[in-house]
């Protein structure tokens, strides 16, 4: 079946411009995560959506970052007034559900969007 998809695969932008990244989760997955991976580093959590609950934005590095998700479908991550330090691969992951107190559902990752801010 179709996995998590992300678009665009690559994005080059100029400092100060806004960018929008898109994630299509696996159908039926209620949980959606955004992560950022800077060159040579591990993944950093950015934001989490679970169904229609309020998102967990605790990982967003600044108020220039925002994300939306409509129901259990597509999510967009928006970065306003991009800076060079925003250059990274932005990864989206989805999982079937959140289980509290028991095991964590497997997160399935998309191919990522490589953002380069000049």
């Amino acid at each position, binding site marked *: 079946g179709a996995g998590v998809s992300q678009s665009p695969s690559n994005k080059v932008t100029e400092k100060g411009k806004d960018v929008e990244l898109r994630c299509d989760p696996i159908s039926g997955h209620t949980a959606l995560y955004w992560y950022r991976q800077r060159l040579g580093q591990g993944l950093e959590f950015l934001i989490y959506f679970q169904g229609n609950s309020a998102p967990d934005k605790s990982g967003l590095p600044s108020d220039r970052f925002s994300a939306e998700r409509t129901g259990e479908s597509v999510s967009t991550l928006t970065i306003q007034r991009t800076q060079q330090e925003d250059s990274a691969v932005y990864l989206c992951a989805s999982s079937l559900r959140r289980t509290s107190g028991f095991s964590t559902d497997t997160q399935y*990752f998309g191919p990522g969007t490589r953002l380069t801010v000049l």
Partner: protein
Amino acid sequence: AQRVTQPEKLLSVFKGAPVELKCNYSYSGSPELFWYVQYSRQRLQLLLRHISRESIKGFTADLNKGETSFHLKKPFAQEEDSAMYYCALSAVKNAGNMLTFGGGTRLMVKP
């Protein structure tokens, strides 16, 4: 706050040699530990998780709570094992179950 440390950025071994990729974590509660792998030009995918106690592609990992470690091991490395390996932790009581990742170890298996 939780933290995951992978002390080796690069591990190079010969085919058939044993492999151990180190992972240490810090977390005050009861964590779930995972190993994710990213092969060249492929997306990040789950390799194994400690609660499953499985051997995947010949790899095993045991959670050692006393040493707060979750090292990944394979007795005989194969060339196709060459990839980036990430250790990750999920705080089970965390409402979001988001993953905290280590910095990754690149495994190169030479012929």
